[in-house]
């Protein structure tokens, strides 16, 4: 909030826009359209006044954050927000039913990802096989992000070349990779979605974008039934990529075609405990 506190005029468009919003919303309170509960004109006037006061308070707010007026105004918004109706289902599937991992496999396969169920204790062999198959048709190294469990790569044939992203590989270099292998943060069964938060074992965003082949390992324990469960486990301050199948487009005659700018092949190893 500090950038407007210096000398000279404040950002005029910012002030104009905020003033127009407050005028429009005090009008709304007057006609009862806003959900502030201001039904009579006295309440509406006070709403208009508090909007005007709030404007002044925001402008006067110190570098430490909210003034008393800001806090009061924001608290009113918070209270109204908490009271909003949310009658939708938090879960469309019962996680206790045990079919969540299967549902995830089925739904991401619907969007043309290649899915294999493998035992979590024996990931090295399927990883080695999938990379060997890819290497047979596409030259180049596979990029491996920092923090990938080393056991996953324990059975690779010596012919498979690996590249590390330290120091960071230029985009043009990434374009010459045969593929990338990563883990993920969480997955959603309902929509067949894999979520990367680009933490350890997932790499920065470019790593899973530029190469044309993405092998991703999803542990069954990372699969949540629905959007709401999965999103509650994410840290919004991190960058995220939600992936539901390989790159696709519906831009020609609204018909879905797989394979545009992102990885054209998405290979998923779903690791099960038994």
């Amino acid at each position, binding site marked *: 909030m500090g950038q407007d506190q210096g000398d000279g005029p404040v950002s005029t468009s910012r002030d104009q826009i905020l003033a127009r919003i407050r005028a429009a919303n005090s009008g709304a309170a007057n006609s009862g359209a806003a*959900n502030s509960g201001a039904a009579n004109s006295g309440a509406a006037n006070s709403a208009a006044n508090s909007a005007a006061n709030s404007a002044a308070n925001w402008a006067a707010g110190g570098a430490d954050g909210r003034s008393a007026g800001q806090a009061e105004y924001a608290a009113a918004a918070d209270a109204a927000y908490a009271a909003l*109706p949310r009658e939708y289902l938090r879960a469309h599937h019962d996680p206790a039913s045990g079919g969540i991992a299967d549902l995830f496999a089925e739904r991401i396969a619907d969007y043309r990802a290649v899915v294999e169920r493998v035992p979590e204790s024996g990931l090295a062999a399927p990883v080695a096989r999938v990379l060997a198959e890819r290497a047979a048709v596409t030259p180049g190294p596979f990029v491996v992000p920092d923090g990938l469990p080393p056991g996953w790569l324990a059975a690779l044939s010596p012919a498979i070349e690996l590249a590390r992203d330290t120091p960071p590989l230029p985009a043009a270099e990434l374009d010459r990779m045969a593929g990338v292998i990563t883990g993920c943060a969480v997955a959603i069964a309902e929509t067949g979605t894999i979520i990367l938060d680009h933490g350890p074992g997932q790499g920065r965003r470019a790593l899973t974008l530029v190469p044309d082949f993405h092998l991703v390992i999803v542990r069954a324990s990372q699969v949540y039934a629905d*959007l709401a469960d999965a999103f509650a486990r994410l840290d919004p301050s991190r960058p*995220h990529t939600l992936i539901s199948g390989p*790159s696709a487009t519906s831009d020609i005659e609204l018909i879905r075609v797989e394979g545009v700018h992102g990885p054209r092949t998405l290979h998923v190893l779903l690791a099960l405990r038994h």
Partner: protein
Amino acid sequence: MTAPGVGAPPPGALPASAPHPGMPTYLGMPSFPVAAKAAVADSQLRANLAHATRTIRAKRAVAVAELADWEQLRQAAKAIKDHTLAHLDTYLLQLEANVTRAGGQVHWAADADEANAIVASLVRSAGADGVVKVKSMATQETGLNEALAADGIGALETDLAELIVQLGHDRPSHILVPAIHKNRAEIREIFRTQMPDAPAGLTDDPAALAAAARTHLRQAFLSASVGVSGANFAIAETGSLVVVESEGNGRMCVTLPRTLISVVGIEKILPSWRDLEVFLALLPRSSTAERMNPYTSTWTGITPGDGPQDFHLVLLDNGRTSALADQTGRQALRCIRCSACLNVCPVYERTGGHAYGSPYPGPIGAIISPLLRGVTSPIDASLPYASTLCGACYEVCPVAINIPEALVHLRAKVVDAKREKTFSPERTIFQLSGRVLRSPRLLAAAQRASSLSGKLVARSGRIRRLPPPLNRWTETRDAPAPPPESFRAWWARTRGTGR
């Protein structure tokens, strides 16, 4: 549907009809009926549109039916958006504070010109003469590409359909699929003639066309230093931006360049991260009829070592505060640009998007354009009439925008704006009818006259042509012939007087 006129300007509101220098490309458009005439006569266009909209309508219905709580999700989305609009200043300031804290810079643009100037100056200070763009309605609305070109900055559209439109020197005609008016054969022709690196022997197989676009844009993505995007959602609580897409061009634009500039309408804001559980359930199913679109990116300011290290958020008003001041029209600001309303609209299916004279076609465009720009130009004054009021748009809208209600309200505004102007046959007829209907004697005389004249002009029960100025009615439709005798006359003749 409520009666028109409920949205009288509230005291203290700024005038909603103030002109905005927005959407420069489309000004000077003829009114909707004039523009639609050519489109309706184009049988290829109508076949392309009918095919595409029929396909997506059926798929959407299946995707929506999968969720038992669709209506509850829709009502939650409506409530969240209405709440956000009622506290828009608070949430914008919260967003600004959080984006700034996360290392981004926030700019405010009152109108299209200001937004374009901010972007141009940011591109220049990044030392670039070109940008890669992911499809964004906000920058189409501001005419950013044209403004940048005037400044010597090239803007490359990377969305497949936008690329088709840009290469074809055409205009977008659909919110989601801007090239919906072109079929695969036409697209192949555009690629063959306008794309220098199109492969020899390119077929019209959609997969081959998509592959050609991949090759064509690859180098531009890898070498771009500035990306320009919009955003589907901006989260006030965290300062996060969200871009929903399919092809991966969005990921390229928001990840690979050193500088990222996102131009976002002030109504795109959501209070909290949690709200994504509602909107990411509604948007893909309504838009592409998928359970989830292939790629969604979220980012919060700058992440050291990952993605752009210079991030700018341009918050755009450009008429949105005028729409907010319109108590009936403000619901249009709930729109999440899914385009479901276009795909079900019987008018859109026949006219296509160009006739709407704005980047926002279809039912939502018929209310958004006049709300953002006012009702002074011929195109904006005609848009509220570009509808049969059948209500299909309202039914499919994932944020429950009552488009028919807003259309009727805007029609009233158009009439009010014209009231002071010169002679109008329509108004004269309605004034005369009012007088006639108020007087039993005049009504009886008029009914006798119409029965008589009906005998003169009607053929087999229909009136096909009336003399001027009444021919404006019969130009596009037949009128039923008046009955030979009115009910009142029949009543009086058969038993009215005798009993």
